[in-house]
């Protein structure tokens, strides 16, 4: 393996390849930072470009872009509450309040550090454990995915705000996810005979609308003529903060890789689950959502780690772990490579070059994120009168590019207005996203599990992994219900 790594290192350090990686990181930065333009779209756009390259360079380029977009979603998430990628939604929860307090530099620094750390942990796991972990991932089938989705949904309890509003949000999200053609039977649900709705509601228009557009509307109402000039000073490593967040970082990176490895579950879910776990383990859970370092570190470490984890089943089994890796898989086929269990042994040179490439991408992110973000954060000082319209334009273009659909743009604007109103009652907007992301997984996997067991609910409790996931979820729900009662009792005794 060391031999292959060394070989890979030599391939990557060829000047042409280094240049390629550098431009990939830059493109990834840019695309990831623009709301609506996610890694999936960038990889799609660059796919035809790679047809002319040799396969090693092609996959280094694609995976590097993939890694860089997952990272740079945090920039606009923290600065403008306009998550650049779906993976960065959770980062806005604590990142944006810090920016509002004038601590944008601190927030970005934590974000960069956590991302790079998560990405590096992910890459190391990828290099060492790929063959081993792939077989573990196969143990996950429908009942386990259902368990995981249920566990993910319990996050709502830790989102802060009023629990009942959070629950309504999750239910709304879950319900929106059912719109469209039912994947299992082909029945049209709530489509009102519209072709646009039969395709279902995409995640990106909802995220961009609820977060970015509603924020622009809110800002437009505020008077910001006398805006103080904020100077963003990014400090990537701060030992006092690091000491505070080191456990969060470790836990989130590992959790992120683990979730990323599971086929079909991506970095967004990883960020959500790891955020909720961090709140759960925290000594001061009430502070989350108001701008604590852990609230940035957790999702960022997790989503970058998960992005790398998603490559594990791709390389080891030819099964994509997320949307972007599914497209990279398609690219493998175009290059005449056969993804599958023998892929790693047959193409070890290419794989190890890609691994080393990813490693270098993390270093490049560390080196170049600072100047790049500084460029972006200068925009903070531009009067909102110029920034507002430009953010809206980015939102429209980004949303449109997801499916080439004007309908999505209208949907996005609609969710923008909805988000504006929901903000007025302190509604936890993330709850809707949570439901929307986990809804399809929860529903279809529940139905698939029961189809597998022919209607027998015991399937969830016979299989060890799903049994433990679901029992943990049930315990957590009970804890949420019981803990206020206990607190009340205690208060009464005092």
């Amino acid at each position, binding site marked *: 393996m060391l031999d292959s790594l060394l070989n890979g290192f030599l391939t990557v350090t060829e000047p042409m390849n280094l240049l390629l990686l550098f431009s990939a990181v830059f493109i990834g930065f840019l695309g990831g930072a623009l709301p609506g333009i996610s890694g999936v779209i960038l990889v799609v756009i660059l796919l*035809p470009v790679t047809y002319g390259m040799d396969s090693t360079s092609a996959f280094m380029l694609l995976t590097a872009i993939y890694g860089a977009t997952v990272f740079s979603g945090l920039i606009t998430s923290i600065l403008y509450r306009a998550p650049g990628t779906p993976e960065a939604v959770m980062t806005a929860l604590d990142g944006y309040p810090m920016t509002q307090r004038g601590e944008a530099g601190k927030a970005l620094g934590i974000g960069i550090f956590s991302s790079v750390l998560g990405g590096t942990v992910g890459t190391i796991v990828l290099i060492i454990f790929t063959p081993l972990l792939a077989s573990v991932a196969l143990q996950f089938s429908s009942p386990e995915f259902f368990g995981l989705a249920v566990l993910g949904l319990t996050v709502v309890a830790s989102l802060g705000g009023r629990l009942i509003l959070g629950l309504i949000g999750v239910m709304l999200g879950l319900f929106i996810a059912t719109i469209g053609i039912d994947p299992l039977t082909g029945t049209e649900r709530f489509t009102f005979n519209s072709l646009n709705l039969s395709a279902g509601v995409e995640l990106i228009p909802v995220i961009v609308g609820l977060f970015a557009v509603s924020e622009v509307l809110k800002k437009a109402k505020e008077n910001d003529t006398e805006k103080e000039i904020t100077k963003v000073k990014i400090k990537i490593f701060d030992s006092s903060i690091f000491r505070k967040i080191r456990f969060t970082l470790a836990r989130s990176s590992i959790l992120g890789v683990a979730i990323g490895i599971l086929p079909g579950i991506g970095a967004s879910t990883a960020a959500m689950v790891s955020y909720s776990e961090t709140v759960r383990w925290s000594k001061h859970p009430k502070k989350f959502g108001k701008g604590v370092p852990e609230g940035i570190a957790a999702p960022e470490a997790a989503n970058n780690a998960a992005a790398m984890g998603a490559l594990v089943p791709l390389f080891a089994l030819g*099964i994509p772990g997320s949307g972007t890796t599914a497209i990279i898989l398609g690219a493998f086929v175009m290059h005449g490579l056969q993804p599958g269990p023998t892929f790693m042994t047959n193409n070890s040179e290419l794989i190890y070059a890609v691994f080393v490439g990813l490693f270098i991408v993390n270093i490049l992110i560390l080196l170049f994120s600072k100047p790049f973000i500084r460029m972006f954060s200068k925009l903070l000082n531009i009067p909102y009168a110029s920034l507002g319209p430009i953010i809206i334009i980015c939102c429209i273009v980004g949303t449109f590019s997801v499916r080439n659909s004007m309908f999505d743009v209208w949907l996005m604007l609609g969710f923008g207005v909805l988000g504006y109103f929901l903000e007025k009652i302190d509604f936890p907007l993330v709850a809707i996203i949570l439901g929307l992301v986990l809804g399809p997984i929860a529903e279809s996997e529940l139905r698939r599990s029961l189809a597998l067991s022919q209607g027998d609910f015991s399937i969830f409790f016979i299989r060890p992994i799903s049994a433990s996931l679901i029992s943990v979820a049930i315990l957590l729900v009970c804890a949420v219900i019981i803990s206020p009662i206990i607190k009340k009792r205690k208060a009464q005794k005092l």
Partner: protein
Amino acid sequence: MLRNKFISIIALMMVFLLVGCGNSSEESAGKSDENYPSGNMKFLVAAGAGGGTDNFARQVQPMLEENLGTTISVVNLPSASGAQAHKRTANSEGNGLTLDFASSTYITSLAAGQNPTGLEQLTPVARMQSDVMTLIVNPNKYKNFDEFYEHAKNNPEDVTIGGTHAASPDKMAFLEFKDATGLDLNFIPYDEQGSVSSNVLSGNIDGMFGEISSILGYMESGEMKPILIFAEERLKDFPEIPTTVEKGWDLTNGNERGVFVSADTPDEIVSKIEQELKNIYDSDKYQEYEKKTNLDFREGWLGSEEYREKLEKDLDKYKKLQKENK
């Protein structure tokens, strides 16, 4: 101050009006095949990026660009099984500049009533790929087709087959297979091919219907095995695998990929595009791509007329199957 603003807004309106006039006076496209193509072309791909249909379109794109001396933009419209791509093609001007790249999913989703654009709204130009459908299992579960068949026959409702969504070519293959063999099997649709494969690998489901080209890697490692081929004759590369026809079942459909235009397109232009596609199909470069992606197990080409006949036949068959299995 406020007056200034109004003046600027009015000025902008003027600009907009001028621009509007400029646009409307653009000349309309010519319609004879002589000056075809009369402008830049657009490929609408009825599938997501990176899939087989997308790869197909992007392979044809540079070749057609070169042969016709035009620029082609490729737009992916994967939502609702590509229904948007068909709809937009049907509504496009009949000048042959908008081509719809679709797979058999077009006809299967039409049969399932999930696609409002019927065959009367589109003209098939050519079929360029015909992939072979196979029944694939985990060899740890079933060594060969006979073993599978015996087990399924003796244990009704016990065997579960996975596939991608409810109106896909593999679902239709499943229905056809069930109909022809009389076996009592279950079907579970998954969201993506990867989930189906991983469930076959882990043994949670018994098998799947799919293309040989997509599982070559697993065959090599012995973790998946095709046990039945939907074809008339055994494949040259896999002489040991039995076919449906030799078992006495007339099932030969696989996933096909072709090109469509709006039904308003005049016949000359349709045959012109057909000729251009035929040239591409026969070129060494295209054949090399088919070979590289293992799509060359059987002849892919079908001209406009034959392709339409084939599609109509398939549609009737699938509609009937869909109705029986509602």
